[in-house]
């Protein structure tokens, strides 16, 4: 589940990003983007630990895409460091969200088929 832990840490990073990159207080959208993205990262990554919501991390593909789109589209380059952070972390999120739960094990269906233990 290492990918879910990385996502959770990226979520914390997004929550503190507005302070690190000194978002202007007037730029509400930037604050909202970072905090919503951070909350989604933490919620969906932790939800993936619970069997009924183990697909949660796939939603992070959308979150990552939204972060990338927001960072790239909300101003013209050179971008504010906060927006570059949205792009950079957004692409990383898309990448990490692809990694399955328990990625080093065969998928569940194959585990059951081969009689492999968890």
């Amino acid at each position, binding site marked *: 589940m290492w*990918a879910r832990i990385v996502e959770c840490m990226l979520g914390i990073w997004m929550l503190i990003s507005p302070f690190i990159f000194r978002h202007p207080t007037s730029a509400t959208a930037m604050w909202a983007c970072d905090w919503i993205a951070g909350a989604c990262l933490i919620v969906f990554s932790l939800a993936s630990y619970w069997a009924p919501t183990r697909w949660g991390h796939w939603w992070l593909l959308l979150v990552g895409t939204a972060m990338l789109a927001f*960072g*790239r589209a909300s101003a013209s*380059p*050179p*971008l504010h*460091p906060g*927006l*570059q952070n949205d*792009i*950079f972390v957004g*692409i*990383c999120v898309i*990448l*990490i969200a*692809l*990694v*399955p739960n328990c*990625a*080093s*094990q*065969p*998928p569940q*269906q*194959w585990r059951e*088929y*081969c*009689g492999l233990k968890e």
Partner: protein
Amino acid sequence: MRRLNLKTAVARYDYNPSAWSQRVPICILAAVATIIAAYMALYQWRLVDSVWDPVFGDGTETVLDSKVAQTMDRWIGIPDAAFGAIAYLGDAVLGMAGSTRRWQFRPWIVILFGIDVIPLGIVSTVLVVLQGAVVGEWCFLCLVTAAISLILAYWAFDEVYVSLKYLYYVWKKTHRTATVWDAFRGYVTEAGLAAGDELVSEAR
């Protein structure tokens, strides 16, 4: 229920291309390239004042500040070296994900990994060489990462080949796109099991 060997050699190789001993070196080398690219990105972000270049002096800085690099920054929104760092990070992350029989259990990861390593690696190498030719200055660390890209593409090829061949065998047995799609996303199928057996029997 059948036992599938997670370590078996496969298709024209005398080893398992999805084994950790095959994948971990790729991930380590990709991680090295990530660090080098991130270091160059730090310069483009002006978080460091200069870049180490033992061969071309300030060639690296000239290339990293060139018009070509600036144009690419304007397209992507972040420095091109940062984008490169993410691409190498992708090689490492997708290289780590999956079991030691992922060529059959999760072909989609192997193929995404292959797309990141092989076509993207070759394109970025060509771009680096072109940049040297267009800008007229060479960048030592860019050349190092380009060389790493080529090594990674060479190392990754066997696994991608086996996964593609697996999907091809599934297609040959069924001629049904839906079954190939199921095999691609890692579902257990009759055709997939037969294709896997066939590939294992081809091992040297």
